């Protein structure tokens, strides 16, 4: 047992740290650090900078731009990316559809899509959720009927993040409604968002953000060559993909940044005779959060150090379950530190500092983190069944 990094790992970390400290323009990283929203262009341009240096998709096969890194090195890459407040590469591209195409796609599909996906020349969105299928993903209803060399797709997807930015959607569709189990009869299809019959309607979230959408698919013609894997075998792709989604939740540097910001701001806020940072109840709240953050970090390292096979470790459900709650707890902390000014919704209309109103948006927006990507209830069920055998 040895928790410190080896000399090689330290050297690797230092290399990442010095690269990320300058790779992406400071203005963009300042926005990330402040929790402000990035434009599409800013996200694209940062990913392209990373990709130009081979650092956008390290988890991919080397042949397609990946790096032959150990799990620890991959962790250090993530950690240093976050520490520097560099925008993360677009998760839909690099963690979700990319690995699926690399694993299940034909050589032709790989050549067509993977380089453009790594470079964010194609912006992907995820067409999984449907109005009647939330946590119960397999009950999806969007139909795809084969007609010669096309599928005709009809249905509705929802909670589609960045659909309004996306060039393509990877979607689960039902190709055999008569299959004995509902998980069978589902296929994994790539859909060009410019196809006739695709309509995107934004859904306004509770914080006012317009990042998710409904996507209506009316008689959309999708060439059969855009099928990934076998017909009716899409559930295998989905399971592979969801394993990666769950493993990707470990934004501890974001939590650390929020804690640091809360402490800094608290030192300026009057409380009792002194300031809020002197207050023992506040300090105890910070101490609890810092302890949980550290416990999650070490747990994440246990997953990283133990992952030989690349298969998802069931303990990653724990990281998602507790990590999402810690995210919410730290957004709530900042909301409380911001005080009365947090309630002013639109930064800039008064002389209140911009960060204060933003805390309410961040708090409200983060309520989604225990719902999306496998809700906390689903994570508890996974732990109970696949770890505890209940």
């Amino acid at each position, binding site marked *: 047992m040895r928790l410190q990094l080896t000399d090689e790992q330290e050297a690797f970390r230092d290399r990442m740290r010095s690269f990320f400290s300058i790779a992406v323009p400071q203005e963009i990283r300042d926005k990330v650090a402040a929790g402000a929203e990035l434009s599409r262009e800013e996200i694209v341009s940062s990913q392209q900078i990373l990709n130009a240096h081979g650092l956008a998709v390290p988890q991919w096969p080397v042949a397609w731009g990946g790096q032959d890194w150990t799990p620890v090195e991959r962790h250090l890459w993530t950690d240093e990316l976050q520490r520097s407040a560099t925008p993360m590469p677009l998760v839909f591209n690099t963690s979700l559809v990319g690995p699926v195409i690399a694993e299940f796609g034909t050589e032709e599909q790989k050549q067509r899509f993977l380089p453009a996906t790594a470079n964010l020349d194609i912006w992907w969105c995820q067409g999984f*959720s449907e109005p*009647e299928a*939330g*946590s*119960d993903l397999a*009950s999806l209803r969007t139909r795809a009927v084969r007609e010669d060399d096309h599928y005709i797709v009809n249905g509705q997807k*929802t*909670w589609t993040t960045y659909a309004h930015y996306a060039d393509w959607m990877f979607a689960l569709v039902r190709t055999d409604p008569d299959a004995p189990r509902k998980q069978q009869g589902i296929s994994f299809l790539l859909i060009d968002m410019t196809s006739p019959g695709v309509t995107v309607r934004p*859904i*306004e*979230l*509770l*914080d*006012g953000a317009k990042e998710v959408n409904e996507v209506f698919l009316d008689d959309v013609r999708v060439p059969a060559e855009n099928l990934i894997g076998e017909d009716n075998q899409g559930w295998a792709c989905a399971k592979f993909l969801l394993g990666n989604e769950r493993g990707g939740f470990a934004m501890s540097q974001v939590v650390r940044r929020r804690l640091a910001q809360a402490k800094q701001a608290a030192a*300026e*806020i*009057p*409380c*009792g005779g002194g300031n*809020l940072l002197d*207050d023992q*109840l*506040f300090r105890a709240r910070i101490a609890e959060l810092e302890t949980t953050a550290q416990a999650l970090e070490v747990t994440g390292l246990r997953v990283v150090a133990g992952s030989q096979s690349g298969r998802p470790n069931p303990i990653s459900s724990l990281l998602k379950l507790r990590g999402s709650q810690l995210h919410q707890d730290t957004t*709530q902390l900042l*909301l*409380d530190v911001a*005080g*009365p*000014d*947090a*309630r*002013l*919704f*639109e930064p800039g*209309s*008064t*002389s*209140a500092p911009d960060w204060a109103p933003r805390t*309410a*948006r961040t*708090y*409200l927006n983060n*309520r*989604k983190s*225990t*719902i*999306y990507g496998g*809700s*906390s*209830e689903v994570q*508890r069920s996974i732990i109970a069944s696949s770890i505890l055998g209940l």
Partner: protein
Amino acid sequence: MDFDLSPEQLALRATVRDLFADHYDSIEQRNAVSSTDLGWSESLWRQAATMGLLGLPFDEEYGGMGAGPVEISVAMEEAGRVLAPEPFVEAVYLPGMLISRAANPEQRKRMIAPLVAGDTRAAFAHDEPGSRWPTNRVQTQAKQDGDQVLLTGRKRPVAAADSADLLIVSALTTEGTTGLYAVDAGSAGLQRHVYRTHDERRGAELVFDQVPAEPLAERAEVTALVTEGYICAQTAQCAEAVGAMRAVLQLTVDYLKARQQFGVPLSTFQALTHRAADMYEAVELANSLTLQATAALADGIVDPVLASRAKLQVGRASVFVGEQAVQMHGGIGITREYPASHFLSRLTAISRTFGSTDDHLRHLASLVGTD
């Protein structure tokens, strides 16, 4: 010992419920109103004035109903149920209560009667940038200039100040005492920077530059007065929160029954139904302390401990019930098209207004003593 409402209070509740039902029968109707510039309904306001709702706590000589904290809580609980955005507390009850306590008879008549009639609205400009409940170091200056008093300073946030006609302003006199002043919101030298809140209310930052003001009262009473005003206002908001929690719990229960997942209704998942039971518990305990705080005010008792305990219990419950209602709704819970998220926003705001939950816990902790 009696927790029942009188026949008159029951009638008031029915009338208020009908009034709100006419205007806010759906979240679409309510959102349509709260997205206007004003952010609330002038027609509802006029009807509220006509039926005496705006004058509930005020003397009959000013057109009021001569009712009290119980009636206000009854009305505010109904407002909470439908997330009514009208600033009853901020624009009428709180400033009106300060005027009725601090002002002379002529001022009272002149200022309260039009509030009760629905012709004007007021706002209480007390908080200044950086101030935190319960301490507010007022720095706005009140300077005597010949016959008149001129105010200079900055107030933020001031709820309902966007549409107020009359401002009740706290300021520091040259003698170092704190006074209350009435200011015409249209005065020269006064800037208003209007803001919206995340719970779709309105307010303004006010910048005073030698603005003429009319004195109402001076310290030490001002501190006691503001404490009393806040306790009345926060107790009314506790009742509003109870109404909101009841409504969003019912919404969640209905959703659990209707929504199917994995081939069965969500109500078959015990982890969810037991959490709903915990939400019920939270709401009822919050309700109990709100009732007690209200009854104490009705008996003329201004008890900061009772008030802070109610605020603590309501604050904890508001966060738990609001967050879990959203959580149990899943995706639809976090969209503005569906009511759950609006309830969370409002409950989040209430649990951090007139002191946050942590502030009240800190206050209660400071008052703990051996019995």
